[in-house]
């Protein structure tokens, strides 16, 4: 979906609006995206399979599905989150950094809370 923009025949550059210009790169079939999507599904169903079949002892299982999860996060970031693209300042990196910061905080604090260290309080 593109944003509404000034007509192509007008020089958007004069108004300082060049960032609104559409960027059409002659692309072929989106191999990377299809691969990323299929790979993500595979990783999800893989961990689902491992958990429902109880193939390993719980601790190892946890370690394995965590690894799969990290792999999937990396895959999606690389394929879908435009990490490597930029025209001018890489605006997309700022929210991504924020996401990491907040997600790590949430996970860390959740682990702390759910350990119930003190027993009764």
């Amino acid at each position, binding site marked *: 979906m593109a*944003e509404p923009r000034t007509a192509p025949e007008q020089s958007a550059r004069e*108004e300082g609006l060049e960032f609104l210009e559409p960027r059409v790169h002659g692309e072929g079939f989106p191999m990377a995206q299809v691969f990323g999507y299929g790979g993500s599904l595979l990783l999800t169903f893989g961990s689902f399979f491992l958990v429902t079949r109880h193939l390993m002892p719980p601790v190892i299982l946890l370690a394995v599905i965590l690894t799969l999860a990290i792999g999937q996060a990396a895959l999606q970031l690389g394929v879908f989150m435009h990490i490597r693209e930029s025209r001018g300042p890489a605006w997309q990196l700022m929210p991504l950094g924020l996401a990491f910061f907040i997600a790590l905080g949430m996970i860390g604090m959740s682990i702390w809370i*759910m350990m*119930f260290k*003190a*027993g009764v309080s």
Partner: protein
Amino acid sequence: MALPGWMLYLIHTLFPADTRRPTELGADVLIIATGAILFYILIIKGRWRHVWTEWITTVDHKKIAVLYLIGAIAMLFRAGVDALMLRTQLALPHQHLLSALEYDQLFTTHGTIMIFFMAMPFIFALFNAVIPLQIGSRDVAFPRLNAMSFWLFAFGALLLNMSFVVGGSPSAGWTAYPPLSENVFLPGVGQNYYLMSLLIAGIGTTMTGINFVVTILRMRAPGMTLMKLPLFAWSALMTSALIIFAFPPLTVALSMTLIDRLFQSSFFTLGHGGMPMMYVNLFWLFGHPEVYIVVLPAFGIFSEVVATFSSKRLFGYEVMVASLVSIMFLAYGTWVHHFFTMGAGPAVNAFFGLSTMLIAIPTGVKIFNWIFTMWGGRIRMTVAMLYQMAFIPTFVIGGATGIILATVPVDYQFHNTYFLVAHFHNVLIGGTLFGLLSGMYYWWPKMFGMKLDEHQGKWAFWLFFLGFWVTFFPQYLLGLEGMQRRMNTYPFGLGWHLLNVISTIGAFGMGAAFIVLVYNVVWSLRYGERDLTGDAWDGRTLEWAISSPAPEYNFARIPVITDRDPWWAMKESGATLANSLSPADIHAIEMPKNTPVPFLLGASFFLFGFGMVFSWWYVAVLGLLCVIATLIYSGFNYEEHALLTADVIRGTEASLGRLQA
């Protein structure tokens, strides 16, 4: 007469006993009557074509704003009626107007609708109506996605409201804690409705969050640096940042409950190693940021309103921005204060008690800055400003009782009493609702081209304000006297009688306020004072520079920003947009075309949700296939733009008197 088996099954499933009580039958009559009126208007009078081309398929942020607003007001009505029924039941001790189940269902839908289907769409109404105009943009970054967000909200809301008359309402509270919300305790479809409607609406909300982050970061007019961004836009940016990271934990918690209920897993069940407390953690991981999602926009609105009606530049802009940003971060680190009594340990509780109190600091800073803005200004007491004036003391008291609740040992006493109920209504009504109503009165001329009548508006305001305090002040005292939240009735002789009577009277005062408000809106739409200048309040920010309502393309020429209050600066220097636009400045504009995709997507999700609610897998799969088909159609639809020629725009601008001869 013997009905065939499948019909008996359908009747039994769709209309179980709790949809055949007098209230539900009454609602049925209302729904059928409304349906008949709609049928008459749309089909018999042939307005459906207009509704379809102008509204249902629209991708224009200004029209989507109107749609959101209609939805929000309708939901305010629905959830308000719920509240009045609850208060009627509680007015006197030992009353049994409502059964315990009916009472549970009413407070569940009241809370869920008020937060997710009233506050959120009301906020998005104002974001959509104002943000693109304020930052000098022609639309949001992704107009079609924006329409999709709206229709997902609308069909999610429809699903939840339908539960009342088809299948049975949810009854586990707006927080829906397991194990109560699991199959063992609530086997009906009510909880499924709750889960599916919030999941569907949640997709829309997340997309809106993304849309506004991109819009505000990337679509600002040239010259509008982040430190020249109006505060309402800053608050929208921070709200969106909260939405993007707070909704995933909710989605996870809801999906896991859904999988428990529909596919017999045991994430949160009591048996089989389930962990209900994990749901509580996940829910509030979302829930606390959510309360700031609904209050930050109000902060933004007040920052605009107070500057305009004090005819002064906002005091301490940089500090206001800094406190918005720090509230955004802090809001992610306080969620345990909703479950101190779960007993995660003294260290955890002390940490989160402190972090909660920390939020009061930036909030207090903002309060002082609003007061300093008024200080020495020429104040105009419009309705929007009245809400702002009422907000300050009300919110301060709500914040103060919040601090009391954040003190862990004290919270062990007050948790889940009416003291808590009073606290959060104090901040939600005094903060969020007053803020949204203030914004509605303030930006109404920009949205509809006429003012809401001030005299009637003041009546509604005073009824709301007084009604609010009469309702909720007694509830603080009731909490201190030990009245628990969510009780459906209470015995004689506990000293709760009088306070409950007063509270119910106040609630009906707010009911009256709502009626006056609606009258105010309807009256003003017909007879209200037209706004021909585009600048109804002598405003400061960019949205007041264009005509009211804004033309389809917003700005014929994107302005270049040099000042934090750009329109004020233009007025000071005498160079208005109106007389600076010459015909040669105007070029053709490419606009996004209307599309039925968002509506169809919402309808497909609705079908999917409905199938899931009743575990009718064929229906659910069909709905999902429709979702995929709509997306594929949308993805291969390359003709999404139409050209608005320069001549058309010149014509429009000239008819608005905004073109140099």
